[in-house]
């Protein structure tokens, strides 16, 4: 059953810049969909539209079959930066995500999530005392405390070192198994997309459009050293190459068939 439906979305800014054109992405309940593409292909714009932080110029977004306009209680988000509120302690920052919960239930969930993200005992610390990875863990917990039907991830791991990133991938997958939200994530990291997603939607730029949708049929847990993982990465990289090649003006091709790909 489709949980999140993005139907023929387009976004043109007041100055005439067309950021997105005719985006169609459907995600089933509990599915992880990664939106992949280079800078300027409208990934973050798309996520902002789904989050209700911006309005599409055309098209509709539905959650559980209901069209939505603006922010929605079923949709939660983790941003590129943790965006913790500096005046709230760690526990209160997590609880902040559960505005609509009964206070007792909110405290119970916050406490359980603190433990789940490995930060039990940190509830009375200030955000300034946390590392980047810890802050992002808190941001993930804050996004999940309300048990959202749809979780949006806007490149939340991009600023982290590879070790922290890998541990956060594990954390997200673990929490996803428990709560089963539909996850729509944007990333420019092919490895990350293949690690996490059930499906990868490759976008092409100017304006942002869907180029190709690739099903990632590798069973979890995924072994990054397996040939299946490597093959999937190559398939995705080729799709990115094709998306860029389509966008390139006619003339000698820098890479692609007969050229040197930056990916392969």
């Amino acid at each position, binding site marked *: 059953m489709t949980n999140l439906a993005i139907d023929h979305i387009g976004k043109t800014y007041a100055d005439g810049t067309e950021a997105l054109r005719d985006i169609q992405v459907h995600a089933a309940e509990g599915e992880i969909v990664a939106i992949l593409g280079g800078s300027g292909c409208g990934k973050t714009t798309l996520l902002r539209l789904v989050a209700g932080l911006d309005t599409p110029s055309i098209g509709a977004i539905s959650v559980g079959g209901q069209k939505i306009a603006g922010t929605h209680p079923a949709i939660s988000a983790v941003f590129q930066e943790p965006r913790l509120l500096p005046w709230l302690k760690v526990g209160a920052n997590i609880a902040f995500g559960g*505005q609509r919960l009964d206070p007792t239930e909110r405290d119970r969930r916050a406490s359980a999530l603190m433990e789940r993200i490995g930060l039990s005992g940190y509830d009375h610390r200030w955000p300034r005392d946390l590392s980047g990875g810890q802050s992002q863990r808190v941001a993930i917990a804050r996004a999940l405390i309300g048990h959202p039907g749809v979780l949006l991830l806007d490149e939340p791991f991009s600023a982290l070192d590879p070790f922290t990133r890998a541990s956060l991938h594990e954390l997200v997958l673990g929490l996803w198994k428990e709560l089963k939200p539909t996850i729509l994530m944007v990333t420019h990291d092919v490895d990350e997309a293949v690690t996490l997603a059930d499906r990868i939607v490759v976008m092409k730029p100017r304006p942002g459009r869907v180029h190709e949708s690739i099903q990632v049929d590798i069973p979890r847990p995924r072994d990054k050293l397996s040939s299946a993982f490597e093959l999937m990465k190559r398939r995705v990289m080729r799709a990115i190459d094709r998306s860029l090649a389509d966008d390139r003006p006619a003339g000698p091709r820098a890479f692609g068939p007969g050229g040197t790909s930056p990916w392969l």
Partner: protein
Amino acid sequence: MKPTGFIIPVLLGVTWEVVVQSGLATGRLMPPPSHLLHSAIGLAASGELWTHVAATMTRIGLGFLFGAAAGTACGVLAGASGLALRLLDPSIQALRAIPSLAWVPLFILWLGIFETSKLALIAMGVFFPVYLGVLSAIQGVDRKLIEVGRVFGLSSTGIALRITGPAVLPSWFAALRTGLGLGFMFVVAAELMGASEGLGYMLLDGQQMGRADTILVAMIVFALLGKACDSILVAISIPLLRWQDTVRASL
């Protein structure tokens, strides 16, 4: 004030005391610390000093209260509404450009020579920095934090109370401190424009009577009161701004 802050004033005081006591200077226009202490004790014992302090502090307290309240209200209004900003800000900026002492004759004409005109002058001095501080702080609130509030379901009022309010708090306290400093500056002007009591009156009285010690005692009391009031504001702000790295560092 940390002990190191006392080194320079104590050193200067001791040096001047030695210079006057050894007869190298008379100390008539610049009395030594012992003379000032003697004068201060005399003024305090007679109760005269406390009358002046009470008058000045009442004026500063009320003027600061009115000025800070009006500055905060106008700053919030202009910061929250584009229409209010367009309506209010040009007029307030134009009024700010008028030298504050230029208002004195008009205030006396409008409000009389007594307390009301003095309070109006002090409140006006406090108003502008508070207004500007609040307005620029609201305009500078991180849009990304506002978005967090929206994503997690806060209403406009919720965003104002739970995001904008706390985000503006450090700048508000900074603006209040600036306003308070200007309040002290303006109370002197207010008391010089016709008062029978107050530290400003004490300054004028000292000048007319040729008593440098009275003038200096009034100045020192001003400095002590100003520092004490500022410290009270800082003390109030510390528990509310504990989350800031800067406050923690200065503790």
